[in-house]
């Protein structure tokens, strides 16, 4: 090709490229993630700390506790449809307080941010439906009192002895009635759940481990009657995690023999188990026993890698000699992965007796601190 033709073609190509560049659509910004572990380990001065056991009273303590940095209302549960279809759900309200700002002449002025996470796991189709919402603690857009916990139109209301959960998103909805079948359990030392070396690395923590659940679940246009078991966790505090603690692996298991097991394995940056890990064994009569870190051993039996390359330990071998349990937990399916503002894994699992391979229960697993952010 002649030199002049080459020069002209180059100029033409440059002009066309420049014009094409002008017609581009603005790129979608990267997702900014909320670092819940970060929020839990960087409490500022203005927040109250949990440093020792104090008596709790109900229903007062169902309501929010102002002054603490974070608080959550956490439902998870395994459900069955009439046709034997397996479903799992999660409904969580998080409240993150902000340090006091300027006094503003507006009803929108706020001292806290609420986040609601709603998810449905469809076991048969191995589909995960997550939905996330935020609101400020203003204009009654979100809140929690003794009888009602809500964010916009998603709410849990206490009527009589039951909780009524109603939450609806574009392609799925939950309408469930949850009734406690055993008493509330104060975790740790009478609700004082210590998680780190400093006495202030602690939260106030109680659970209702077994709630008989019934109602309907809508997936797309299909509304299905469901029944099952749920677990409620309530926790609040400030600066709960120690500085080198990066996350936790939380198990809530409903065993067929009527026992409930909760394990919270707190991890250090290097992946080792913190001595501040803990657990709880609940018996059918409602009595319960604290499990110290050294009373159980949990080892990963299978890792799953998500699209971003983060690795998640979905299956575990767990040994609790004092409870005579040698079990494996298996994720019902892998992709129960939250990629909203927080990157975590929360999903339904099966409990297998390692000795004979029999399914002896169901539960929920939460993995935090493995993803981006």
């Amino acid at each position, binding site marked *: 090709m002649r030199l*002049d033709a080459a020069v*002209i073609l180059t100029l*033409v190509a440059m*002009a*066309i490229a*420049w*014009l*094409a560049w*002008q*017609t581009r*659509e*603005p*790129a*979608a*910004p990267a*997702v*900014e*993630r*909320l670092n819940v572990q970060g929020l839990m380990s960087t409490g500022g001065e203005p927040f109250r700390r949990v440093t020792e056991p104090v008596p709790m009273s109900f229903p007062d303590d169902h309501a929010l506790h102002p002054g603490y940095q974070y608080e959550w209302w956490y439902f998870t549960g395994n459900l069955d449809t009439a046709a034997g279809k397996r479903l799992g759900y999660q409904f969580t309200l998080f409240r993150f307080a*902000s340090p006091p*700002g*300027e006094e*503003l*002449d*507006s*009803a*929108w*002025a*706020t*001292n806290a*941010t609420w*986040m609601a996470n709603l998810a449905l796991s469809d076991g048969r189709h191995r589909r995960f439906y997550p939905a*996330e*919402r*935020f*609101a*400020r603690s*203003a*204009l*009654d*857009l979100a809140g929690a009192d003794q009888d009602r916990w*809500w964010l*916009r*139109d998603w709410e849990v209301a206490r009527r009589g002895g039951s909780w009524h959960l*109603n939450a*609806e998103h574009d392609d799925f909805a939950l309408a469930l009635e949850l009734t406690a079948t055993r008493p509330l359990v104060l975790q740790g030392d009478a609700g004082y759940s210590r998680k780190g070396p400093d006495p202030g690395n602690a939260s106030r923590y109680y659970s209702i481990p077994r709630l008989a659940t019934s109602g309907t679940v809508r997936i797309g246009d299909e509304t299905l009657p469901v029944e099952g078991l749920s677990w409620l966790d309530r926790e609040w505090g400030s600066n709960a995690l120690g500085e080198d603690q990066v996350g936790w692996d939380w198990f809530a298991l409903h065993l067929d023999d009527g026992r409930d097991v909760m394990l919270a394995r707190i991890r250090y940056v290097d992946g080792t188990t913190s001595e501040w890990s803990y657990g709880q064994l609940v018996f059918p009569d409602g009595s319960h026993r604290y499990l110290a870190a050294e009373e159980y051993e949990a080892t990963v039996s299978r890792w799953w890698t998500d699209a971003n390359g983060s690795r998640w330990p979905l299956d575990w071998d767990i040994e609790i000699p004092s409870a005579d349990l040698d079990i494996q937990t298996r994720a019902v399916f892998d992709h129960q992965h939250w990629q*909203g*503002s*927080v990157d975590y894994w929360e999903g339904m699992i099966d409990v297998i007796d390692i000795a004979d391979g029999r399914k002896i229960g169901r539960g929920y697993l939460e993995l935090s601190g493995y993803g981006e952010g």
Partner: protein
Amino acid sequence: MRLLLESSRRFFYRHPGQLLLALVGIAAGVAVVTGVALMRDVLIDALDSATESLSGTDTVRVVDPGGALDEEVFRQLATTRGAPDLVPVLSSRLRLGNRMLELVAIDPLSLGPSSIIRPAGTATGALVGQANAAMVTERTLQRLDLAPGETLEVRHFGQTLQLEIVAVVQGGPALDDRIIMDLAAAQHLIGRRGELSFIEAPSSASEWLRQQLPENLILIDADQRRESAASLTAGMRANLTAMSLLSLAVGLFVIYSVLAFLLVQRRRTIGMLRAVGVTQGQIQALLAMETLVLASLGALAGLVLGTLLATALLDLVRQPVAELYRMVASAGVRPGVGLYASVWLLAVVMALASVLGVLREAQRIPPGQLARTVHESQYNSAGFWQWLPWILLILGGAVIGMTRSLPPVLAGLFVMLSGCALLAPAGGMHLLRQAARLAGSGLVARAIKMLMSSRQRLAPAVSALSLALALSAGVGMMVLGFRATVDDWVSRLINADTYLTVSQGTLDSADVETIAAWPEVTMLTSSRQFRLDDGSMVVGYDLNPVAWSGFEWLDGDGEAARAAVESGAAVLVTEPMARRRNLDPGDRLELVTLTGPVDFEVAAVYRDYSTDRGMVAMIGWRYRELWEDDRRDSIGLYLAPDADITALEERIASQFETGNLTSRESVREQTLGVFDRTFRISWALAILVGLIAAIALISALLALGLERGREYATLRAVGLPRRGLAGVVLTQTTSLAAIAVAMAIPFSLLIHAVLSLAVQPRAFGWSIALTWPWQPLAVLVPLALAIGVLAGTYPAWKIAGRDPAPLLRAG
């Protein structure tokens, strides 16, 4: 064909200047058309692109037609079961010096997943909870010459706000000049507790919203918003379109002139090619191919230049749009592939069409012809061609006279300009003949006669030049005439000594009574405006006899009208209103008031330039009754001759915390300031057209000089000194500029008249009193003559310096 292409390649190598001129000519024309098209689009997208890009596309809006939306509506909707993602928005205008910015306050936590601001993101964290925290895009940061962390001082209705840029938000041009704040901080800062401007929701939620909304609220979808933006800016866009069509016309003449000139230069080559057996068809194909390549490349360059031009000139359009229509348009153009492709194609096709004549002429070059012997006489033939310009002028005039809508008027103007373009060469030649006769038989006469013999060659250049000059001058005259009219109008209308406004909240009847009792004040006027759904205004006036004399009646009997209006039964309408709704005095007009539809008689039509959407004026008490609105936007104070201004100001300060007095003179200045900013784009385009004309002129002059080489050589050979020859060339170029100017004067008057009397009334609805400002001509005439002299200097120097012998031998 390969050899032919090689010959044209070699030609352009030898004459890079010609190549450049051809490319620049085409590029300049295309650039103006592209630039204007891009700016027009920005005006249409202006209204809602900002919040759309914040909360996701395809949205609907909940608004309160009566004004601000109560935030309680948001709470109600958001907590109702089945609620979609709703985003509460409060927006307001901010001012930074002469620049208009838009405050967009949102609740970042209400934004859905399709939003560009993440509720959980660091930006949200930085924004929420701080009274003066704001964020902007990277582009806006650069435009405002700010860095993150710096403080921005803006004005909001007379109040100064200090905003700290705490974060940079990602986003496209739609967020240009937007200051994004948290709703709580914004309400606090601008004192609008409890108020929202609207609620944005995904359009899929329309049905749900319709069921939930209280009766007084309405839902507006994206198409309706776009339509309303389009109709708001229709007048301004029409003006821009007119300018771009005119530029296109000039650009086409430039293209023709440049290509015709290329042909002239290669007459010798073509003659030789014909002699060695190249057919007419091959020659035509070659020239068509050249045109295609030149036009393609030039048009491509034009697209690039046009995009840059639009980016550079956009502020001239954005500013008045923000001031007149309260829309902050994005500061960047958003070109589409479709627009680029269609402009490019248009330019190439037009270029090919415009050289058809040149191709025909090339066909006529006989084999072996090495010198110029064009039969000029055939172009002097009488008949249809002689009458065509007049036919076009009359046809265009008839179209303009007969229609009430804008597009045919623009088409008519285009036809008239074509007529002018055709008329220019003939008229110019006539002038040259007269000049030659006056000049007698000297060198000047000889120079002019030589010029006259190149008539055919000069025709496109004279057309392009006179048209471009006329356009620049005509637009200038229209703008100045319009300005004089507006000045006259505002000076009549604004006859109180000073005007009181308050920056937050409003005045009411009690305030009026208080002020009326002050010793410094002799009389008052007051007014209150209400915006109707279609963007037109209702204004309730309380006027005194002096204020009444400020109306200029365009239709109807003023005295009778006053009596009818004061009785409450009749209203006055502005000229744009009368045109829009086709109203005459005596007609009935139904207005939808707060208390239901009410029928009024139209008493008279008055002159008004405050809004092109139209305005209805009624007596204050009737307005207050029908709209249950006791407030006033401003009060005009007529002061006693010995009034103590300082005492008055003190009274105002003690009575009204944010009270502000504006003198008559500064109201006038502000009005004219807005006017001037509105028409800066017209001036800019007029200057661009002038530049294109300069290119036309230079190409014509170069053609002239080069083509006449042999005759100049003869003059030198018969003893004309170099200086004399330079004089001949200069005389010719100056004469060329002079005839173009001479023809441009009547054309410019015509353009001025059409723009003032036909285009403005149809674009904006108002008429302009036709005056004849002479200033544009006073600037352009000497300027064009000076360019003629300057542009002649180079060929004169070059030609005078040449050795005549080779040129003589060549013939």
